[in-house]
């Protein structure tokens, strides 16, 4: 295994594209280093992208925020602007691992690992976030939901790197939230994860909604029926029940060591209802309520 730490995105892409053997991007490394030790995955080349200045930044863009690929969960959590605009996305990113993991793990890494249980991805999908992908043939913008194609599989072509994620500008009276279920209070992989983003009109009627559902299928799902259950309603109890039913109906989970099909299916609905209630409260209050308050 070789280690390279290029200074520019272009040289990182060139290294990645030019490696005849296997190559891996090292951002936070919290998944990659575990894989290195598991015997299945010592690649020929590891490309550390943390020396690339342009990827370290969080920048305002068109009323939204662009998050660089090497921004850690801790750095994201300390950024007031992103937290105010997208509290659900930030709380999802902050749920990835322990304090120690937060010091390293990145949201882009979480996306590119393509785990169906990735915490930040349901929230990013609900936020309609867009990944900026740079490769040998240039740069393209891709909806985050199109990055993962299956467990551990992505749509990225050889040599392509996700350089940043754009969280778009959002209208007034919007709110988002992310909830996951884990058996402990920390240090677990989501058994179910739900991200909800919604917008209200002046009369409190929901005009737009997106619901992302994690750990219940081979990839994180965008559940349009769940969004439809909210849109046009005041997000009353009946709407929340329809939302829950839609989320449970969308589940295609497996039985594994972390949960059963029955459990995941039911809890997806429960969490969707609870997350929507938090998102609603945030939309109504006009600003983020305390993240991580819902312990």
């Amino acid at each position, binding site marked *: 295994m*070789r280690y390279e730490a290029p200074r520019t995105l272009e040289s990182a892409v060139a290294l990645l594209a030019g490696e005849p053997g296997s190559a891996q991007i090292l951002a936070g490394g919290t998944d990659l*280093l575990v894989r290195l030790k598991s015997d299945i995955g010592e690649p020929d080349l590891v490309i550390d992208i943390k020396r690339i200045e342009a990827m370290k930044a969080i920048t305002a863009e068109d009323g939204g925020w662009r998050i660089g690929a090497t921004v*850690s969960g801790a750095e994201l959590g300390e950024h007031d602007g992103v937290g105010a605009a997208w509290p659900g996305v930030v709380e999802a990113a902050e749920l990835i691992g322990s*304090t120690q993991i937060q010091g*390293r793990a990145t949201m882009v890494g979480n996306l590119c690992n393509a785990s169906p249980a990735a915490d930040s991805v349901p929230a990013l999908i609900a936020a309609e976030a867009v990944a900026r992908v740079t490769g040998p043939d240039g740069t393209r913008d891709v909806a985050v939901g199109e990055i993962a194609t299956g467990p551990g599989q992505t749509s990225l072509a050889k040599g392509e790197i996700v350089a940043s994620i754009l969280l778009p500008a959002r209208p007034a009276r919007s709110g988002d939230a992310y909830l996951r279920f884990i058996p402990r*209070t920390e240090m677990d992989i989501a058994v179910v994860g739900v991200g909800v983003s919604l917008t209200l009109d002046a009369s409190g009627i929901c005009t737009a909604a997106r619901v992302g559902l994690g750990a219940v299928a081979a990839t994180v799902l965008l559940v349009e029926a769940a969004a439809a259950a909210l849109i046009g309603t005041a997000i009353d109890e009946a709407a929340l029940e329809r939302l829950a039913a839609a989320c449970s109906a969308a589940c295609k989970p497996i039985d594994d060591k972390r949960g059963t099909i029955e459990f995941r299916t039911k809890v997806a609905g429960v969490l969707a209802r609870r997350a929507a209630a938090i998102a609603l409260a945030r939309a109504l209050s006009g600003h983020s309520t305390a993240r*991580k308050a819902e312990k």
Partner: protein
Amino acid sequence: MTQIHVSTTINGDAVEFLCEAQETLLDVLRDRLGLTGAKEGCGTGDCGACSVTLDKRLVCSCLVLGAEVEGREITTIEGMADGEILHPLQQKFLEHAALQCGICTPGILVAAKALLEKNPDPTETETRYWLAGNLCRCTGYDKIIRAVMDAAEQMRGA
């Protein structure tokens, strides 16, 4: 195998070492530099026994490559006391009997110090969540939490 030359700062001292690409910072600290205070309890970032700070950020040294720390600043448990004067956290851990076997203690002290530098007045809940990545199997955490809260109070008064 060609080794990588790394220049870094550990506990305030300039340090140079050679390592292989796949070696972790924990391997380097323990096996190449003789700094065995950081422990390997899992090797996968799940136990926190190898906690150090990297540019003041709390990390698991088992999830950092040695090659990554070129030009960075690392602090370990060996850098916590000031000569013969213990850090207030170290002193409070002794007074509260906040360790039994002591294997998790270096990681927990490093993590607790990082907490108090960021938040000098943490609640019990904040302390528990901050330390959730540091497993302790002996104490049930009670005396650890009390020691951290007590050290925080003393440091605020100082």
